[in-house]
């Protein structure tokens, strides 16, 4: 397995979140998640202005194999969504941690990030799942 970005936090349900340092965060699904799903054909992002919370499904990614809910790792309000995914859902397959981001959120409680996994913790969880 390739090394995971260490500047991200990870959820057990395979989302990543990047603290942008200004009270906002960017959320996507991990490379492992896109690999399990296979070629994505559709992304249904949250609406800008939606309130999201941990454990609540807020987006859907759909591949030829399955449709899967995306859960927000943190509480907050959606500031922006990655419109480019509408025409090119495969961006998530190609660059899950970069261009394949799904939405940006204004965090209500940045401390929530601490309860998420770091790269080492997520790697350990994947190893256990395997």
């Amino acid at each position, binding site marked *: 397995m390739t090394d995971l970005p260490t500047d991200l936090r990870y959820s057990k349900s395979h989302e990543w979140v990047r603290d942008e340092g200004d009270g906002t965060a960017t959320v996507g699904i991990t490379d492992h998640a896109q690999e399990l799903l296979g070629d994505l*054909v559709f992304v249904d992002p949250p609406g800008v202005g939606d309130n999201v919370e941990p454990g609540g499904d807020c987006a859907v990614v759909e591949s*030829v*194999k*399955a449709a899967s809910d995306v859960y927000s790792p943190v509480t907050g309000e959606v500031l922006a969504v990655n419109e480019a995914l509408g025409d090119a*859902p495969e961006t998530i397959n190609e660059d899950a941690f970069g261009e394949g981001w799904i939405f940006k959120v204004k965090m209500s409680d940045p401390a929530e990030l601490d309860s998420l996994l770091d790269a080492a913790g997520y790697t350990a969880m994947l190893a256990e799942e395997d």
Partner: protein
Amino acid sequence: MLIYEQSRPGRHAPAQAPQEMADLSAIPESLRREQSAKLPEVSEMQAVRHYTRLSQKNFSIDTHFYPLGSCTMKYNPRAGNSLASLPGLLARHPHAPETHSQGFLACLFDLQEILKQVTGMHAVSLTPAAGAQGEFAGVAMIRAYHDARGDAQRTEILVPDAAHGTNPASAVMCGYAVREIPTGSDGDIDVDALKQVLGPQTAGIMLTNPSTVGVFERRIEEIAQLVHAAGGLLYYDGANLNAILGKVRPGDMGFDVIHMNLHKTFSTPHGGGGPGAGPVGVSQRLEPYLPIPMVDFDGHDYRWLTEDDRPHSIGRLSAFAGNAGVLIRAYIYARMLGRDGMHRVSEFSTLNANYLLKRLMEAGFDAAYPERRASHEFILTLKRQAKELGVNTMDFAKRLLDYGVHAPTTYFPLLVPECLLIEPTETEAKEELDRFIEVMQIIQQEAQTDPEQVKQAPHSLPVKRLDDVRAARELDLTWVK
């Protein structure tokens, strides 16, 4: 080749030409067609060959072994079709008065009674026109029950993570929030997790038993007690009824509402989207809410039960009474089986599944739940093959087509990676099962020695490996000349 591409101006088939010109006088001039319809112009023989060839390209239960898990692709007895095609049934108008429909109504009434007995439910309505509509009706009745009691705080339906996707969809359609219950490593529901989420907000739980992972939910009695104690109701998804037919009854397990897929368990033609029949059965406390119409018998005459008889009904689901032709076929099937035949269905379907499972495990395939006895279906996981050989479940499934076997269900349930859900049904002979095992072994061998052969399959079919990703991304459904 499309039949339109064979078209030549002026060519025609006398057999299809109208014998006399239709009388158009009743159709206003303004509504009449000015140009003739763009129909293909072909000879009679071209038409015959075209459709015969198309039919030969079909994979169907009449031509191929079809172990499509969770779909119960069993043989559909021809007798069902011939009897359901009797003129009295076929030509009966849905508005025909009850006095002219006593035979038809008697068949439906008897079917209601048979389904009550075989499921252990208190009452049955046949009207839902498909499994999904049966589910919707079932959850709508749960909702009607709580509403009638003024119990408005119940907003959640619990669904196991292995459930058919229709379960959460039905719950949402009825206005409920869905909460997922995890499955343990032995295939049973995680009862501790269930206990944690049960509460005054629980409207009910939707279960399939045997579940979609192909094993019997062993703690069902305890689950029923827990859910009932919390004030919730139990919904039984009848998708896997074939495994327990005539042996165990959902009513006895404590379920309050059930839908049955007659097109599966009661052997009417299905696949390709229908038509289906999804009757619902209920315990006594839900009876007032059953969808109408139903059929009643006063010892002398049969009649429809409608709004007047059932003021608390959730209502009608279609203009008439569901798919009558499917219901009649299911009735004929049930009568042909009789009480003794009914339990042989589950005996042979589980025997066939367990035979296949055991032999495939001996042949080196990994069962998802190796320590569990299969129900009428079971799951193999090809995770190891995918990892070691780069040949995945989809490749196996496509290669099976080359050998004349319809692929089992692939990649469902989602919680088992690289899975094949295999359901042979009771109507397959041992020889056919042995051939399937043999073919699986051949493909396994090919995956080791010539993986490309498997990864590029199918090779022998008119359509090769489809680019399903591109098809989904660039959907194109129109043919332009």
